[in-house]
């Protein structure tokens, strides 16, 4: 009988891929808890597209989704719409596209690693990605197509390498098309992708002058993407940059400049040394460099912020390998030959990846610098193999592996046990309770009253949890537009207020109706006073115990028939 020979590297890759996919999809609906408001918005817009071909505001197959006024990118929503269409709207279908993209990145980077350093490097890179804290965090969130855009960018890098190696023009199309798509998945790609596209063509143009026409076509694809994005710039990117950009936050810079000049009595030298350009330049440089710094790479934990990683990108033991890998990458980039271009493009990606984060406030941000996810792991793997070559000591390798395994296990303990238990509150756990109560009481209640104190955009949760018919929402909603932000005040049975006070109960339309009122800790007292003194009620349900409570955030629910106006 003929013996079937199994390639052990292939087998290892399959095992790593299965583990990586399992880690990304296991309990996808509950770790992290959710959906938080962006996820709910993405999910509902996908649902709306799947049902009607329109978004929540009635736009037919839009290229940018206005959502709350934050203008969400379309690709993730359209891909999610396909899953929602077949499997219904829920947290898992909302998150699965990022989960799958994160899993597929394991394969993409195996190929990249294999092509530049051999199969061993490919395997170690894929292992590092499969177990990467950033990989797990960002594959399990659906606030935007973060992981999807990284996957597309990594595909473009793979295509570039394949073009260099195989000289087939289809890889050039694949390179441009991946970058083109990435620009519609997450805002960071709108900065990264054009730069990669231009860098790629500059690197290739010298040796491919005879193929100029072939090269122009993919370039045009990239250009088309840029043109579309430019038309969206006014509504989309600019509205985000307005709030996030460092240049928009010039108040602090001006204050600092004024303080320094005041101390110098406004001399000419002071004006030359202390001005907005110098200080903003320093802040930008600081932000940029922080992404390569030890504090970010092994200490970074962005607690309390939704859609951010609560764990640093690298485990402690990986840090020296990362820096060593950087040296190796630069060294290889200096060598001659066509493969040099591959290393140069990798270095370019590494250098431009932090830009979206560096120009925004709150840098370093794991989310906005995620374009080098995968590349960081590849560099670490390169450094790891360099060290092995230097050490040539099996015992040392075993010790390193054990320390790495301990680091991974410690991360898993945090990610699967501590994180969902302690940080659920930032993933709209309170709003999830509201959603469940709305589902339960929808038939009986005449009106639901919610305030924006419980959530800034409370309207999205009933839509998500009830899978509310999009057409009905478009017809019945009333809203205001303030500072490019949509404030939905009511739709169907739902009334939304900035806060719940006496004025809310002065409306005649509420008389004789069954009301369900949700309140936070502060509003609860007001409503209890009203129930006891001012409002004549035939039935009231007092809830002295909160439905949800975490530190100072609480949720109370009141159900009663409102018989007479105050």
């Amino acid at each position: 009988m003929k013996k079937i020979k199994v390639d052990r590297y292939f087998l290892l890759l399959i095992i790593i891929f299965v583990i990586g996919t399992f880690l990304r999809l296991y309990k996808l609906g509950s770790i992290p808890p959710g959906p938080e408001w962006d996820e709910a918005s993405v999910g509902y817009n996908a649902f709306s597209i799947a049902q009607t071909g329109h978004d929540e505001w009635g736009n037919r197959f839009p290229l940018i989704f206005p959502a709350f006024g934050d203008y969400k990118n379309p690709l993730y929503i359209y891909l999610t719409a396909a899953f929602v269409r077949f499997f219904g709207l829920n947290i898992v279908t909302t998150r699965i596209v990022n989960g799958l993209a994160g899993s597929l990145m394991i394969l993409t980077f195996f190929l990249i690693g294999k092509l530049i350093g051999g199969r061993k490097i490919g395997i170690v890179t894929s292992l590092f990605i499969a177990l990467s804290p950033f990989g797990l965090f960002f594959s399990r969130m659906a606030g935007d197509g973060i992981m999807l855009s990284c996957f597309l960018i990594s595909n473009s890098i793979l295509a570039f390498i394949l073009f260099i190696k195989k000289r087939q023009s289809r890889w050039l199309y694949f390179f441009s098309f991946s970058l083109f798509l990435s620009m519609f998945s997450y805002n960071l790609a709108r900065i990264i992708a054009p730069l990669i596209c231009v860098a790629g063509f500059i690197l290739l143009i010298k040796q491919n002058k005879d193929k100029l026409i072939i090269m122009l076509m993919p370039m045009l694809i990239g250009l088309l993407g840029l043109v579309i994005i430019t038309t969206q710039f006014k509504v989309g990117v600019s509205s985000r940059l307005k709030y996030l950009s460092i240049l928009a936050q010039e108040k602090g810079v001006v204050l600092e400049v004024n303080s320094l000049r005041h101390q110098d009595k406004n001399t000419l030298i002071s004006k030359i040394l202390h001005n907005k350009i110098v200080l903003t330049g320093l802040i930008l440089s600081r932000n940029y460099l922080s992404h390569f710094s030890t504090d970010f790479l092994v200490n970074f934990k962005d607690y309390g912020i939704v859609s951010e990683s609560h764990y640093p990108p690298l485990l402690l033991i990986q840090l020296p390998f990362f820096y060593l890998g950087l040296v190796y990458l630069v060294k290889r980039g200096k060598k001659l030959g066509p493969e040099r271009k591959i290393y140069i493009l990798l270095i370019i990606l590494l250098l431009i990846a932090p830009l979206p984060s560096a120009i925004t406030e709150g840098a370093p941000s794991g989310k906005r610098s995620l374009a080098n996810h995968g590349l960081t792991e590849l560099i670490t793997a390169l450094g790891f193999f360099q060290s092995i070559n230097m050490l040539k000591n099996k015992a040392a390798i075993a010790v390193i592996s054990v320390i790495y395994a301990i680091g991974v296990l410690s991360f898993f303990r945090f990610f699967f046990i501590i994180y969902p238990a302690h940080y659920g509150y930032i993933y709209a756990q309170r709003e999830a309770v509201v959603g469940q109560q709305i589902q339960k009481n929808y038939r009986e209640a005449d009106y639901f009253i919610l305030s924006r104190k419980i959530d800034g955009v409370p309207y999205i949760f009933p839509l998500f949890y009830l899978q509310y018919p999009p057409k009905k929402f478009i017809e019945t909603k009333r809203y205001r537009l303030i500072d490019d932000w949509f404030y939905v005040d009511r739709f169907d049975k739902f009334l939304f207020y900035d806060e719940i006070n006496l004025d809310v109960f002065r409306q005649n339309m509420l008389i004789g109706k069954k009301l369900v009122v949700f309140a936070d800790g502060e509003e609860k007292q007001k409503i209890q006073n009203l129930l006891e003194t001012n409002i004549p009620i035939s039935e009231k349900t007092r809830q002295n115990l909160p439905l949800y409570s975490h530190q100072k955030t609480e949720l109370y629910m009141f159900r009663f028939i409102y018989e007479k106006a105050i």
Partner: protein
Amino acid sequence: MKKQFKIPLTIFIVVLLNLLFKGLFINQHPNSIALDEIHYLQTINIHIPFGNYFFRIFNLVISTLISLTSFFLVYRQSKHYLLGLLFAIELIFTPWVFIITRFFNWYLLILLLVIIVLFIVPNRFLRFSSIGLLLLTVGQALIELKIENLQYINTKLVQLFAILDFNHLFFLGDTSSRFANIPLTGFFMYFELTLLIIGFYSILTRADKKIRSLLFELTLIALVSFFLQKKDSLHIFLGLFWFYLISLIVAIGITKFLEKNINRRFLVSVVFGFILVNIGFYQELFYSHFDKNNSFEWGYAENSAISYYRTNRYQNILLSEESGKLKQYLDYFRFTDNQVVSAEKMKGRCQYPSLCIVREQELPRLNLTKDQVKRIFRHFDGLPMYFVINNLR
């Protein structure tokens, strides 16, 4: 140049530059004495007269010796004169050395002793034993042997990576205290980042064995020294040996840069022009803004109060319970006619030659407003600290 002139000339240049750069206006900047300095001086039982900051010359001498011995150490190890010279010069101009030289502390002395041991003890085992012994002995005052559990090591590691972060190294400096923090300046200058990268790259790719070995030894010393210090020490002390090590890597970077680009005069001039601008930038920040921004830490209001007390020949001073910091200054400068009493008990006692000082939060208890006090001692930034009250009934 003949060898017999080369070394004396180097010594002369290094000493001169040290004295000129680090010693400039040492008696005036910082313009007051910090409480931390007082604590260091008290520990070794040294008392200085009020208003005289010449004791900082001690640090200047030590710092100059560090620069000089480092030249000899690296020159002997590498047989590379330029590297040794540039390292010595790096240890003159880099901000962490500059700022630690400008206030009294004994950490520089420890660094000097370690460099001397590295220089004079030939055997590696002996070197490490003596350095270990030195760190442990001196450490009775600064070392807390409190490695209790893994959590402690973890906390220290987090702290180490925070201090060695690019942000802290090149932009923020010592964030544990503004007392040793020049505004907008890190432990190193901005341009040194590029040289650090060049230095790091050349060490990994083609440094000679002896320099690698020296770097390895320094790394071990830096690690031991870091882990043995209290976690609430100033970052500049915690990272002292690390900064020394990084300075050596920067010096290697400058050397490699110069060796490779010696014929590209324009490039070299541009780089050196940039270096000079960078030095000028942080020096301006030190001389014009450092003590103004950090006047709280440097006890500017306390120094003003003592100066007023002395100039106006008061005979005793009554301090409120909230004025504890001022009391520490008075005790150190041996103005012992001071007494802490509650603000209410000052009534009827605040007449010349008695000086009564209270804090802002105590004024309401005395039915006084800010306009009714005789004098206010403020920090440089205008923040009122102490209020002189008079004829209180």
